[in-house]
């Protein structure tokens, strides 16, 4: 478990203190995929780097599996960092080393394994990320997605307990992003590894994360299980991220619906409820009429969900609303 206790970070720039992270408490369970989302400058990168102490905290404690990592000396810190893998937006592979040497670098630096053992481990890792035939190439000869796979293999080489992902897919095209995220999910499942990732794309959170924290101006403004935060965003920053993901403009939509008659409700289905024939049944039984104004059916990690905005007219509207609420559906009356 990763636990932040009132951790804060202030940079001193030109004689002035600039707070990058306000006192923050946070806990991340083992085996979780934890997403931090925020715009650039929100403090997510600082928070991530505090975990492996690439940034030293200005105050507070960071406890990882019962150990206060803020109290580590240089030697302990090196040992600890070997148990925390990290991947980067721009991959940060060494251009002067082959793919195999890049992947083996953390093991070479740790100096605990023989050359032969390192080679065997590297071969195994390259197989896992599907790059066995590229072992002797140099990073410049690979595509972006392949480079990030090398980065992942490298981060996993020392069998870490935690993997930190710094905007790992931001430099990749959508298709490559999907495959890299899939690889991360796979690693999380099979190796029971805790993943902390930062991103500015809600889509990344929706695809792989279990838990999300939304950051704005150096603090966490909202956090919880991804489905809760994603489907029922409360803070304005969170709402903006969700709208960006859905490519919906709330104000524009309100104008569009202005001339639609009847009440407007938003229904959110999750899990099995997503595929139940609820709308038709309720309409028949209560005599209401509905038209779908907007809607989306998708998945959050492995759970299907649907979100529909309806205009409801005629019939026994109250009874219909009662039926929706009684079924396993979240209903929000917009008008």
């Amino acid at each position, binding site marked *: 478990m990763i636990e932040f206790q009132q951790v804060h970070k202030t940079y001193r720039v030109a004689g002035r203190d600039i707070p990058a992270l306000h006192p923050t408490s946070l806990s991340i369970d083992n085996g979780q995929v934890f997403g931090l989302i925020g715009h650039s400058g929100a403090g997510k990168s600082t928070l991530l780097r505090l975990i492996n102490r690439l940034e030293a905290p200005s105050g507070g404690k960071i406890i990882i599996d019962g150990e206060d990592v803020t109290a580590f000396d240089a030697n302990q810190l090196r040992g600890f960092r070997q148990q925390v893998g990290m991947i*980067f937006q721009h991959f940060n592979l060494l251009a002067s*080393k082959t793919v195999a040497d890049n992947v083996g670098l953390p093991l070479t630096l740790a100096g605990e394994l023989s050359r032969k053992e390192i080679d065997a481990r590297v071969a195994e890792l390259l197989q896992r990320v599907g790059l066995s035939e590229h072992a002797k190439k140099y990073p410049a000869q690979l595509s972006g997605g392949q480079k990030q796979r090398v980065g992942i293999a490298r981060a996993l080489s020392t069998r870490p307990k935690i993997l930190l992902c710094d905007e790992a897919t931001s430099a990749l095209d959508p298709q490559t992003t999907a495959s890299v995220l899939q690889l991360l999910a796979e690693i999380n499942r099979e190796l029971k590894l805790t993943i902390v990732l930062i991103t500015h794309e809600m889509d990344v959170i929706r695809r792989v994360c279990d838990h999300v924290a939304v950051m704005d101006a150096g603090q966490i403004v909202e956090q919880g299980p991804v489905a809760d935060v994603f489907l029922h965003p409360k803070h304005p920053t969170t709402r903006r991220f969700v709208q960006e993901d859905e490519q919906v403009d709330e104000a524009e939509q309100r104008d569009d619906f202005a001339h639609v008659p009847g009440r407007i409700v938003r229904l959110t289905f999750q899990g099995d409820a997503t595929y139940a024939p609820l709308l038709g049944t309720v309409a028949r039984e209560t005599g209401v009429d509905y038209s779908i104004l907007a809607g989306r059916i998708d998945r959050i990690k492995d759970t299907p969900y649907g979100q529909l905005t309806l205009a409801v007219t005629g019939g026994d509207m109250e009874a219909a609303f009662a039926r929706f609420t009684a079924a396993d559906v979240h209903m929000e009356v917009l008008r």
Partner: protein
Amino acid sequence: MDALNFFANVDWSEIWLATGDTFIMLFGSLFFTVLLGLPLGVLLFMFGPRQMFEQKGIYAVLSLVVNILRSLPFIILLIVMIPVTVLITGTSLGVAGAIPPLVVGATPFFARLVETALREVDRGIIEATQSMGATTRQIIMNALLPEARPGIFAAITVTAITLVSYTAMAGVVGAGGLGDLAIRFGYQRFQTDVMIVTVVLLLILVQVLQSIGDKLVVHFSRK
């Protein structure tokens, strides 16, 4: 007959000897320049602004020493250095007397080039290596220097060529070499043929050094 006459003043064994001297001075001083300049360049980089061991005071002192040595004309350095040279090599004359001032003249220049080459390395590389739990020594040896290798080879090439022109001046302390020959015979005795031969040989030397350097840079660029 005219063509042969033209080279009448050229004593080929003299030329051969001078070429040998130039080579010894060049590679002798280049060896020590790299030996001293590389660590100095690494120190300049590490203590420099926004780097791992940012130390304004230390950097300012190192920088000042480097700048003073670089702003001194080599010919002056050669003379000022005489007592020190005698202390190191036992003589201030000949090839042995030329190497210490050559090294002192070229090291600050080379160190600056190394510092620049290291700054070209993506900061993300340092961060990634740190995140693996590397020691400072490991970061320098396993990441920074290998990544900066093309830049460092380019720096060695430029330094070697600068040293070629410095060796010509080393004639002042009786160091010998092609440049010395050009000055003493070609210039002072108006033996144009000697001048042409020595200049052509120096030109070939510079060309060869540059193309070897370029090949090494390309080879290690991996791009």
